[in-house]
């Protein structure tokens, strides 16, 4: 490679593998000196967010895992010795082979995190790898509690293959309902979502506001997209009570006959029964639950129903035990007001084609599919038992019921920091006979591994094509992998070949795999590489740009109609309508508990300068916020004698965490809002690592593990806490990296 050059590639920030912001990497003397946005890339048009700007610190980070490491001593102690790649791969292949032969393929688990994108090249390859082994025990910690549960309800009610997404580009009213407002990645959609159409959220919203659109923020805190005079209204809803707000809006819309009569009569079923059911949910009732004045609820309902082009964005954030009421009420709202698949409403976006190769699902044995962990949860059972449910995997490992998996491969996931009940996760991981973790940096999870494999960053990896709408783009290698790091796709191909599956894995040839991935679009790797800077634009299809595609979109619903009264839920033994129950740990539902734990607690997942549990060790980002924060209203802080910047302990009925108080006037005074994903230190700023367990900095210790929605498996992100000033958390010694 030339030593001075500018290489077009894609950002590693929100994920790798998938369609991200275009980047121009400036290489000087063989080293990436700086990056800028690629102006020819239609997603970010030359823009970049703070995380993308920090690429150089992500790549040239002394904290990175550099060599394959084998555990020495007890699990969890963090002592490892350096070994060769060949030996590491032989050990891994040996354990997989042995587990498969001795126990069966379902005893092998593969888990990925947010880092490698959903539905991208990595994801498909790993599913194919598991299927080729005969297993469906593919498990994701994150989506089980955020993306998938709400989607399950939306699909049952209003159909479509994905969420009906906000058509920001044409909206005159935008409801940001417990979202980050694009905070995850302001140059695109961000970490908070994999919904590829609404990238560049802040930009799209701001453009519409300039044309007179209104923005309503429904969130316990005033998020920054609503600052600077942009929010027409901020409704600081009590955390966890969004379902009551949505139900009262339905009540008002039906009572005042503001619904779309034509759409309802033609495309909806169960209207009369729904109307009878929501009679009880009047705004006065909702005021007592949500803390939003009844007249404001009425006004919002009227505004939404009577604005022709109005969209709602619900993020994955409202994780609840009572998700059912919220996740059923929101699509009902969209449907009865006629806002579905119409310009400016919530519409379904489709690319003109799909990337991908076969996942070889025919290779999965019937036994393995029947025994998939989590089949007792409706969402797994009803979707063909295609993957395991992470909550059930953790339980199965810890309890041995219904059986205990033996070997696990984790690619870019850190469940100790991101899954609920981290103590149980450590117990679960220690029950494995073999755990290999592939990651860029050592994490709390790698401490429990038998083998740690150092992953290359996207800047060091080969071609990763991806599609967004009709734009096909590809990231490419900017520099050779540093130290002995290695592309995860190459690791997977190598492993497959060592397991004798080379005929299903392109004989280990990377480019052949990529060509197979591109094949459905009729494009080759060479053709795409000739358009490295700008990518390729596929012809748009009529279907993509058509709206009101009701017949086609609703065809899989009973009678081809929207289910205002939901039979699927009814068949499972629940009311067919959204019934508000609220969260178990809420002052209204648990007044005695609230005496000892007087404040409501939840946490936010998306942020300008962090991505889930990574990137806290990049100095440019870390200096902006050195420690995990909990946002607290100044009046509340004063009551508990807490000052801005004080370390506080946050204690719930389930556990205790620590955070630095951020006095934040734009939050409900009865609410404490922390952030998830904090554990990492930052060596160059002399900030130590902290524990993901009790007394550390992880909000997941505070939530009730059993407060789960029985249908979707969603777990609550709401609890009650008390706070007090405390000392900083214990410093955790960095893991021995065997260098």
């Amino acid at each position, binding site marked *: 490679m030339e030593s001075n050059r500018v290489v077009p590639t894609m950002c590693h920030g929100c994920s790798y593998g998938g369609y991200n912001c275009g980047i121009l990497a400036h290489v000087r003397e063989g080293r990436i000196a700086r990056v800028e946005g690629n102006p020819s890339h239609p997603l970010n048009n030359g823009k*970049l967010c703070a995380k993308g700007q920090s690429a150089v610190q992500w790549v040239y980070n002394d904290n990175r895992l550099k060599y394959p490491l084998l555990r020495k001593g007890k699990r969890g102690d963090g002592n490892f010795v350096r070994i060769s790649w060949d030996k590491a791969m032989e050990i891994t292949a040996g354990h997989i082979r042995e587990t498969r032969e001795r126990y069966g393929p379902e005893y092998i688990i593969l888990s990925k995190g947010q880092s490698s994108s959903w539905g991208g090249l990595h994801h498909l390859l790993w599913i194919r790898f598991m299927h080729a082994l005969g297993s469906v025990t593919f498990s994701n910690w994150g989506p089980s509690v955020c993306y998938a549960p709400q989607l399950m309800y939306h699909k049952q009610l209003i159909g479509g293959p994905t969420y009906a997404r906000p058509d920001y580009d044409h909206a005159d009213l935008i409801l940001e309902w417990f979202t980050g407002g*694009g905070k995850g990645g302001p140059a695109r959609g961000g970490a908070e979502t994999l919904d590829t159409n609404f990238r560049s959220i802040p930009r799209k919203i701001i453009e519409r506001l300039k044309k007179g659109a209104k923005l309503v923020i429904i969130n316990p805190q005033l998020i*920054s997209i609503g600052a*600077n*005079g942009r929010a027409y209204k901020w409704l600081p809803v009590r955390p966890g009570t969004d379902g009551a707000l949505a139900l009262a809006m339905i009540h008002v819309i039906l009572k005042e006959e503001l619904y779309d009569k034509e759409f309802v009569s033609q495309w909806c079923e169960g209207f009369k029964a729904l109307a009878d059911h929501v009679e009880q949910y009047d705004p006065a009732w909702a005021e007592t639950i949500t803390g939003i004045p009844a007249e404001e609820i009425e006004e919002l309902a009227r505004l939404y129903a009577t604005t022709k082009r109005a969209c709602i964005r619900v993020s994955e954030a409202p994780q609840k035990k009572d998700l059912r009421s919220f996740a059923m009420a929101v699509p009902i709202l969209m449907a009865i007001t006629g806002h579905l698949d119409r310009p400016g409403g919530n519409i379904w976006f489709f690319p003109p084609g799909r990337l991908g190769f076969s996942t070889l699902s025919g290779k999965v044995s019937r036994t393995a599919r029947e025994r998939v962990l989590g089949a007792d949860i409706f969402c797994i059972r009803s979707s063909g038992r295609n993957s395991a449910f992470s909550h059930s995997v953790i339980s199965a490992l810890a309890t041995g019921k219904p059986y205990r998996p033996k070997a696990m491969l984790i690619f870019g996931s850190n469940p100790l920091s991101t899954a609920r009940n981290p103590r149980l996760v450590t117990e679960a991981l220690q029950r494995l006979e073999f755990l290999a973790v592939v990651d860029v940096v050592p994490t709390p999870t790698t401490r429990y591994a038998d083998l740690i494999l150092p992953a290359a960053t996207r800047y060091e990896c080969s071609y990763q094509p991806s599609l967004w709408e009709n734009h096909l783009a590809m990231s490419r290698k900017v520099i050779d992998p540093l130290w002995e790091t290695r592309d995860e796709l190459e690791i997977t191909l190598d492993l497959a070949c060592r397991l004798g599956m080379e005929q299903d894995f392109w004989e280990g040839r990377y480019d052949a795999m990529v060509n197979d991935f591109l094949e459905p679009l009729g494009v080759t790797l060479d053709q795409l590489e000739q358009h490295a800077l700008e990518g390729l634009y596929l012809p748009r299809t009529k279907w993509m740009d058509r709206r009101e595609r009701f017949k086609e979109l609703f065809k899989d619903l009973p009678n081809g109609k929207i289910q205002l009264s939901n039979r699927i839920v009814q068949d499972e033994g629940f009311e067919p309508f959204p019934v508000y129950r609220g969260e178990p740990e809420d002052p209204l539902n648990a007044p005695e508990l609230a005496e000892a734990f007087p404040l409501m607690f939840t946490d936010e997942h998306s942020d300008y300068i962090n991505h889930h549990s990574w990137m806290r060790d990049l100095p*440019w980002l870390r200096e902006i916020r050195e420690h995990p924060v909990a946002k607290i209203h100044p009046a509340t802080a004063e009551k508990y004698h807490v000052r801005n910047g004080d370390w506080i302990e946050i204690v719930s009925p389930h556990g205790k965490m620590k955070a630095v108080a951020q006095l934040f006037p734009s939050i409900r005074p009865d609410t404490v809002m922390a952030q998830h994903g904090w554990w990492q230190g930052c060596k160059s*700023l002399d900030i130590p690592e902290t524990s993901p367990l009790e007394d550390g900095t992880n909000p997941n210790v505070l939530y009730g593990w059993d407060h789960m929605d029985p249908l979707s498996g969603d777990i609550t992100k709401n609890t009650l806490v008390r706070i007090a000033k405390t000392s900083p958390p214990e410093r955790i010694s960095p893991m021995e990296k065997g260098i």
Partner: protein
Amino acid sequence: MAYGLLVDVSKCTGCKSCVVGCKNWHGIPAGEQGRIKIVDLTAGDYPNVSRWIFPLMCMQCDYPPCVSVCRFGAGLIDKHGIVSVDRNKCVGCELCTLACPYGVRFMGQKGKVADGCDLCIDRVQEGQMPYCVDTCPTDALIFGDLDDPQSALAGLIRHEKAQPLKKKYRTHPKVFYVNLHHDPSSLSQ
């Protein structure tokens, strides 16, 4: 020709892309203040609050106190009015960082040399925009020639009634703010 900048506060989300982007482009290490900082203020009482977030950078004053206080001739104003530091002459006395009413001068190069935003003078000379202007995800920053009444910048300042911050210091900044409905005099340093 007089280069200036307009911050359209209604477009700023406080995402810190400019803050980190500037460090990325200019190779400014963590631990130094950097050339841009973000202010996040809330006025009013819950729930009737008004939250304001916007960037601060060198205001490119026509009468820059940082230049006036420098006894070593290290404060520069070029023919287009861009204020910068002559690194060869700066002795690191820090006086300019104290003189700046906006708190945007800082000590760079491990405290040896004063530093501040120079509107990416090197990029501008090559016909490019300052880096932050190009990279801002929401186009909240507009760069141009204040002396050219036809420029988008001058037009916007005129029509939108843009104002500099802290006018009371009478330093005549060339960085203007629009759609900021918050009393900027309450800004702390």
